[in-house]
């Protein structure tokens, strides 16, 4: 084998090796920037249920600066549903005219509502039978809802997301 061929092959191999690496990185890149998921490896320990953990442990630090733009159902039969928030209030209940109609055995016809006030959303229980919970505290009057803290209605959980 001529020396030249071997030298070319040698360096060609190294270059090809790096081409492989960069191709893999390219494939991964699309993943990295496609869609922001819950960016934590740590399976947060606090709290009991579904996504309580997110910011529930430290509601004081619940990202005050960012406004809520979406209401997301994180648990229950409607899990995965999201509603883009506007200026209008959102009613939740089994009644057909609710903004979010939940078919939850433990929900009342007009269960709760979410009301915006100066960019802050408040949750208000509408005299439901089984109550509305913000994280684990029962909602008695209009209560400000921080981002990421679950509102629980029966078996359904909702969260505000930026």
């Amino acid at each position, binding site marked *: *084998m001529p020396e030249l061929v071997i030298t070319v092959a*040698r360096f060609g*191999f*190294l270059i090809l090796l790096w081409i492989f690496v960069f191709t893999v990185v390219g494939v991964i890149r699309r993943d990295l920037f496609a869609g922001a998921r819950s960016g934590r490896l740590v*399976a947060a*320990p606090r709290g009991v249920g579904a996504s309580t953990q997110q910011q529930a442990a430290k509601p004081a630090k619940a990202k005050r600066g960012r406004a809520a733009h979406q209401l997301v159902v994180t*648990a229950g039969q409607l*899990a995965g549903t999201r509603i883009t928030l506007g200026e209008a209030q959102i009613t939740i209940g089994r009644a057909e005219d609710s903004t979010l109609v939940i078919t939850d055995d433990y929900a009342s016809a007009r269960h709760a509502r979410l009301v915006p006030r100066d960019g802050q959303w408040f949750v208000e229980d509408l005299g439901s039978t089984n109550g509305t919970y913000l994280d684990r505290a029962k909602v008695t009057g209009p209560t400000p809802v921080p981002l990421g803290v679950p509102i629980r209605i029966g078996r359904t959980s909702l969260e505000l997301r930026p």
Partner: protein
Amino acid sequence: MARSRRNAELSLLALAMVLVAAYGAIVEANLLDTVTRDFWMPAAALGLVFFGMHLVIRWLAPFADPALLPAVALLNGIGVGFLRRLDLGKAAPADRETLAIFAGTGGRQLAWTLAAVILAAGLLVVMRDHRAVSRYAYTLGLAGIVLVMIPAVLPGRFSEINGAKLWIRVGGFSIQPGEFAKLALLVFFAYYLVRKREVLSLASRRVLGIDFPRGRDLGPVVGVWLISLLVLVFEKDLGTSLLYFGMFVVTLYIATERVSWLLIGLVLFFGGAYLAYVLGGTVGGPFANFYTRAEIWLDPFAEPYDRGYQLVQGLLGLGSGGLFGSGPGAGEPLEIPEVQNDFIFAGIGEEIGLFGLTALLVVYLLVVERGLRAGLAVRDSFGKLVAGGLAFTLGLQVFVIVGGISKLIPLTGQTTPFLSAGGSSLMANWLLIAVLLRISDAARRPVAQGGGPAARPGGGPPEQLHGAPTEVIRP
């Protein structure tokens, strides 16, 4: 987002196999001065079985990470190619051209690879949902302990190779049960910590500003860890015990989200290592082995023809490789003792140089990154712990062995995942990849199709294992 990206995986796999074939061709050009017509056979055999694995993934885990399989396939292929290169180097020049593809260490490694990949595919078939594994967590934990203990209990002649009692040897056949125990123990840790994490992080006692959990909550895990550690003292293998310890600390950290665990772990580890060093110097006994290794590490050139021989040869190999290496097949890797096992990275490094080694390290890094990514994205805590723990363990293992041969840390006997000769290590690591593939499939699967095959038909809420899906929504 819902794209499964299997075609990307296939083309990456093809590229990886081209690389493996090219490696084989250059080896032959250097060693035989000609390229035989069969140079592509090992690459083709590997390509075939990896393609089979790809089809299984397409069928059973269509949303699995597209980068994992090709990256691991490349490492595995280069490993087989290098071992075959060692066989060629050892063979008499006249026999070189006719070396059969399943002959020698390289051939055996090729056969092991086929078996390991089939095993991994089998695991994908059997394990349709990673959460199902948690049902067997206690069984697996017990199996892990038993697997670790067998070699320690067996008489030395059945279990000892090169001073480390890590093996079960029956006839001409030897397996390293510790490699499999690693997976089993991790599943157990993950399951246990998921069950207990609320208690672990809520019921704690504050000592010196750090929260310690109550002893009884940690009992079983510390027990498992102590047993495996004690056994490893008797088996005289520091690397594996370091691996278990790291695995344990990181799983604990992922589960409880307390940085204090990492600090405690590091302090314990460095304290223990220093203590072992001092004890080894004064008392000897079970610590003498570690003391010797530390001495070699501190000054390998003190006895370059004696105790430090292996490390010195490895360093010289890496050094003479320089930036771009001597070219596959043109180095002298056979000068390094155990180059097919622990020192494979030094042997490969001499021939592909720093430039090539870095590429291989980046490939490892990408595999680990994909594993952690799967852990990030998966929606149940058990999966998070398993994926995070497995990916970290793989990374730690690479760090321990590559750090050892490059004299960054004291050398501890560890196999280099996917490269080193050895069926146990290959099989265990391929099983690990199968688990990561399964978890990444669950993580990337669109929610509309349910949280996995276990999702109930009536559109009911996804099954909540241990009540902790951290996210059900998908952009």
